[in-house]
């Protein structure tokens, strides 16, 4: 096999193409469509199931085509089975009727409290965070020192903190001792412990102990020392009460379940005597609790249990408890007790509105006590300011009002408002009204509210909170058209006078939304200017990043037109206030996301471009060595989104210069650079399209500029395969634009960096062999080389040789056939090059076919190259013959055989012989896939029947399927 003479087969591409074309056959649409059959069977089988007889389904399935889908649907489908089963009334009628009734009742209940009622669980966290974290430090400190101070007269001796174990012992003995110097966290932990020990006690059947714990806990609510913490304390302790209420209710419920479980809508008559007795026992026990507040809370916790005894129990108890709260002297304690009662009432019996209203009116009646002497004394003692004290009321009053106002008729709301108005110094109430009442209600009376707010006492409830509440309402619902501007003006007049940057910001943040919603950019711009003015002194913005961020978010949700947005003078200065990098980038990201989502058409608006470029640059500049890959990817995605939206229309040069600028700006984000190169390539092709393929001198220069752009940009990429692919792609683009020397340069560059390809690359964090990628690239490259004309100053097939040399010198993996595979795949290229007419050409570019015109010297050169390659392959095959390489040998031999057959002229005896030898070699060790061999053989036979390929029949006789045995 030493010397092989290569002769390329002569190809007639056009003819072959026609031979390969499928025969057109007429299609009868009515019965051909593959999907149609399925739909038919589907509906049939479903119909049969609906009849409810499972036996008939098998017969129907036999009548339709054996479609796997339909057989699946036949009876075996669990859903249809279920549907069939429900037809048969196996369930006793009475129960199903009961269920129906229950469902109906569920529906009714849903109507009473819908999903639009913000549940307590939402408020809970809010209160806990608001009355702890915001003032955490001060509370922490206060708690320690203040508590010991407040209780020092009574127990000066015991200022030690007891260990937990002792505390639990205390509980057992039922004695009360005071725990002092608890930090807030200790306090929370301790309450959680109590909650746990309550559950434990209940679990171990110590009901009395459980009750004792609950009573002790609720007693804590009468203590108003460290008053700032009271709302949170209320939340924590009512959690325990809820747990307790649930435990008792479940216990009594389970006692009733003895013969059969109670229906969901049971009446007191369904409850058995034992359960009733137990329930009564609880109530008698609670009725004898000495302390008013404990009794009240525990009784409220067990409110639901009243339904075991009488029908009207809940209603009566609610009314009684409502009246009972009047006995609580401290207004704060009383308000929270009311809030709890309303909460339990809403949960258990939401239809009982009377007691809710009564609660509110009682609250109004005792409202003036908030400014009474005893409260003043207490505040003086604890050194709490009145505005702070008043805000403590908000959660409770808000909750009560929310319950009252929930689906309340307009008349009632109006009446409530009138009543609030009548009370002097009603800022607190006003605030809650705005919080709790429907935004629409508040919005339509916005002007009235502003008037009322103005009338409020300066020293009382902080006014900015009032405006914040109003702002919240008007940004959800629109005030009457005519009043909007005056509302904004009036409100802003006050807001702008707020001194503390924090208070100012919390207010402004809310009003921005109203402004965006109802007004144009002019007003928003004014608002922004005002915010900047307030936040700049003393770098106040540093403490208000979350609020400022939310301002931006609100603006971009309302202004999708970025030309308007950026034409606001103050928008960019506003952005400049974000001086902490992380926040700044977040804001930029947020803006970009909105831009990508809402910008429909490409833009060339210089205002937008400048601003967005600035924003993107900010994002880009945040990238450093420590930035995570994911973060980079996310940023790059946003920047790419921006670049994609930039279009200067026909002004290609401008576009290119934009790309130049962008490249300079985003040099650290590789995906952006890649994207820019693609953009520029696209630009070149677009120019080509506009010029319909023939460039003028000017456009030719332009596409060369594009090529230059790509050429100098690509080397800056770190990923070797990005570089390779982009070189190839740019080469293709330049060639398509008839820039031969540029194309040459690209391809040369690609070839020259081939040796740099590492053996392994990291993909998604894993090390993978680069070989398959490299092979892919080389094959791609080879197919490109067909149309690249030879450089006049270099030798024949300069690039092909160069590539093959690089392949030869590349350090391939040990035991790898990759090199030989490249050689084998180079053969088809060389064969294609030796044709008279090439398979494909590039318009207006002369390929080698025209350059050489089938010059025999050229053909000879090609053949020589082929022979070298085949020689190399054969050497390699020989080397594989030795040890365990036989399987690989077989595979390689077979692919070379295939290549010879397709591209070589087998009429030549030597080639013919070589082919036969290769066939035999591949079958020698039996590692060949028999089916492939058989098919190949069949194909050859088929080809042999064609007149010009008749020589193949000779070959077929020499090829035998050895390994059939």
């Amino acid at each position, binding site marked *: 096999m030493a010397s092989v003479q290569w002769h390329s087969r002569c190809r007639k591409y056009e003819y072959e193409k026609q031979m390969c074309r499928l025969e057109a056959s007429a299609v009868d649409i009515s019965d051909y469509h593959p999907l149609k059959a399925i739909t038919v069977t589907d509906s049939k089988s479903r119909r049969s199931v609906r009849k409810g007889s499972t036996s008939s389904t098998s017969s129907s399935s036999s009548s339709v085509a054996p479609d796997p889908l339909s057989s699946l649907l036949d009876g075996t489908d669990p859903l249809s089975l279920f549907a069939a089963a429900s037809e048969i009334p196996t369930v006793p009628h009475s129960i199903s009727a009961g269920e129906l009734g229950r469902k109906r009742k569920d529906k009714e209940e849903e109507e009473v409290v819908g999903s639009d009622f913000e549940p307590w669980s939402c408020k809970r966290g809010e209160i806990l965070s608001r009355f702890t974290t915001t003032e955490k430090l001060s509370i922490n400190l206060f708690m320690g020192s203040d508590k010991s101070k407040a209780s020092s007269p009574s127990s000066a001796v015991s200022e030690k903190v007891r260990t937990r174990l002792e505390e639990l012992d205390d509980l057992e003995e039922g004695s009360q001792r005071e725990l002092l110097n608890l930090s807030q966290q200790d306090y929370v932990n301790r309450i959680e412990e109590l909650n746990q020990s309550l559950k434990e006690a209940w679990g171990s059947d110590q009901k009395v102990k459980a009750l004792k714990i609950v009573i002790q806990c609720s007693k804590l609510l*009468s203590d108003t020392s460290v008053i700032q913490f009271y709302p949170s304390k209320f939340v924590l302790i009512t959690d325990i009460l809820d747990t307790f209420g649930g435990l008792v209710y479940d216990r009594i419920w389970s006692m009733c379940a003895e013969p059969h479980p109670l229906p969901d809508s049971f009446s007191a008559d369904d409850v*058995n*005597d*034992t359960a*009733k*007795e137990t329930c*009564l026992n609880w*109530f*008698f026990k609670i*009725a*004898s*609790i*000495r*302390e*008013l*507040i404990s*009794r009240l809370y525990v009784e409220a916790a067990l409110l639901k249990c009243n339904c075991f005894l009488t029908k009207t129990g809940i209603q009566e108890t609610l009314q*009684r408890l409502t*009246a*009972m709260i*009047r*006995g*609580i*002297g*401290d207004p704060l*304690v009383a308000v929270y007790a009311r809030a709890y009662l309303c909460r339990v009432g809403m949960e258990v019996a939401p239809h009982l509105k009377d007691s809710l209203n009564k609660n509110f009116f*009682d609250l109004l*009646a*005792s409202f003036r*006590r908030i400014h*009474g002497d*005893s409260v003043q004394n207490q505040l003086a003692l604890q050194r709490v300011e009145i505005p702070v004290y008043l805000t403590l009321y908000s959660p409770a009053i808000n909750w009560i009002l929310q319950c009252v106002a929930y689906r309340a008729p307009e008349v009632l709301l109006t009446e409530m408002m009138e009543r609030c108005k009548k009370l002097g110094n009603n800022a607190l109430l006003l605030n809650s009204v705005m919080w709790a009442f429907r935004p629409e209600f508040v919005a339509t009376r916005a002007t009235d509210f502003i008037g009322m707010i103005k009338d409020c006492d300066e020293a009382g409830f902080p006014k900015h909170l009032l405006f914040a509440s109003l702002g919240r309402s008007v940004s959800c619902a629109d005030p009457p058209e005519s009043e909007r501007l005056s509302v904004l003006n009036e409100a802003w007049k006050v807001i702008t006078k707020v001194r503390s940057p924090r208070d100012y910001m919390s207010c402004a943040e809310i009003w921005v939304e109203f402004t965006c919603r109802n007004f144009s950019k002019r007003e928003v711009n004014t608002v922004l200017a005002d915010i900047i003015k307030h936040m700049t002194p003393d770098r106040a913005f540093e403490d208000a990043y979350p609020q400022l961020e939310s301002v931006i978010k609100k603006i971009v949700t309302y202004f999708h037109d970025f030309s308007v947005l950026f034409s606001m003078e103050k928008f960019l200065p506003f952005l400049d206030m974000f001086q902490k990098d992380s926040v700044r980038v977040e804001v930029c990201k947020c803006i970009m996301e909105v831009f990508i989502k809402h910008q429909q058409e490409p833009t060339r608006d210089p205002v937008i471009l400048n601003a967005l470029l600035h924003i993107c640059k900010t994002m880009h500049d945040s990238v450093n060595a420590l930035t995570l890959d994911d973060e980079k990817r996310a940023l790059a995605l946003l920047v790419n989104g921006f670049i994609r939206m930039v279009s200067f229309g026909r002004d290609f040069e401008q576009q290119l210069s934009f790309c130049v600028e962008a490249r300079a700006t985003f040099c650290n984000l590789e995906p952006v650079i890649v994207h820019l190169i693609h953009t520029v390539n696209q630009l070149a092709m677009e120019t080509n399209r506009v010029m319909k393929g023939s460039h003028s001198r000017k456009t030719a220069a332009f596409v060369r500029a594009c090529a230059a752009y790509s050429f100098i940009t690509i080397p800056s990429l770190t990923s070797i395969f990005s570089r390779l692919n982009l070189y190839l792609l740019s080469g293709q683009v330049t060639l398509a634009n008839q820039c031969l020397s540029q194309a040459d340069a690209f391809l040369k560059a690609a070839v020259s960096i081939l040796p740099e390809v590492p053996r392994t690359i990291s993909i998604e964090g894993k090390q993978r062999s680069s070989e398959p990628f490299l092979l892919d690239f080389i094959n791609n490259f080879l197919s490109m080389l067909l149309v690249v004309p030879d450089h006049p100053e270099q030798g024949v097939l300069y690039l092909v040789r160069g590539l093959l040399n690089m392949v030869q010198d590349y350090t391939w993996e040990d035991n790898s056939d990759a090199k030989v595979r490249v050689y084998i795949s180079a053969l088809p290229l060389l064969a294609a090059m030796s044709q008279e007419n090439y398979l494909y050409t590039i318009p207006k570019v002369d390929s080698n076919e025209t350059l050489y015109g089938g010059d025999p010297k050229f053909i000879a050169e090609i053949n020589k190259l082929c022979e070298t390659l085949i020689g190399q392959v054969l050497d390699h095959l020989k080397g594989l013959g030795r040890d365990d390489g036989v399987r690989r040998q077989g595979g390689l031999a077979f692919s070379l055989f295939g290549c010879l057959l397709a591209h070589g002229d087998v009429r030549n005896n030597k080639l013919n012989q070589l082919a036969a030898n290769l066939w035999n070699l591949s079958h020698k060790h039996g590692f060949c896939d028999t089916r492939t061999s058989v098919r190949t053989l069949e194909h050859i036979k088929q080809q042999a029947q064609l007149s010009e390929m008749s020589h193949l029949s000779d070959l077929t006789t020499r090829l035998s399927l050895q390994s059939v045995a």
Partner: protein
Amino acid sequence: MSVSLDIRLKRANKVYHEGELLSGVVLISSRDALQHQGVSLSMEGLVNLQLSSKSVGVFEAFYNSVKPIQLVSSNIEVVKAGKVPAGKTEIPFEFPLQAKGNRVLYETYHGVFVNIQYTLRCDMRRSLLAKDLSKTCEFMVHSQPQKSKMQLNPVDFTITPDTLQNRTSLPKFLIRGHLDASTCVITRPLTGELVVENSEVVIKSIELQLVRVETCGCAEGYARDATEIQNIQIAEGDVCHGLSIPIYMVFPRLFTCPTLETTNFKVEFEVNIVIVLHDDHLITENFPLKLVRV
């Protein structure tokens, strides 16, 4: 060998009236078969009177405790001597609840000096080798509803420094209010209202104190003692002036009964409205109550 004896009354609340049938089961549960010499049940109702050491001397109180008055007593044999099989055995029984002779069945009442208690006792006699078993269980007797028409007798009251008996120099205050009834149905709460119209001094707490007054007749005359049953707070802290505060108290079971007046003893009830001022000064207003069962 674990044997347990239990009495289960049919009524969950264990409340019976005179003339009714007291029915239930004796529950014997044993792991093995059990030999016994008979199971008997006895029902007994007693009034125990105790003289307070306040009225008479300590020793006299100890020795002179008045002989208990038996209201009802009966005894039946539930099972004759024999064997009870292993497992749970339920033996049903019935007692007619009938007073002894011409006595009246007073309502169950647990007090300090007067105790009216009804018990059911089950005894299982066993051979010499094994201990006898017994189990007692208390049941409640409610007296028959009073037929006569009830008068509520509401009470209005006003408390000022002037209305107090041993007044010292007190700051000014005016508390008005009313009880809906001083003749109360024992199953219903005591209700009323109270308004602090004005008060110069801060009020710390307002409480309702339920008091029993027990009188025992004895050889040397009689002893009358008032003790607290329970104390319920109805107002805490400096309550809102001019706003009515509800008076509400549930009469505790067992510790209260319809007001009782017999030849040997009396049980009466009173309620005190106690106003605690900021300086822990107490102002008490007393209201006798008549409890009835309807």
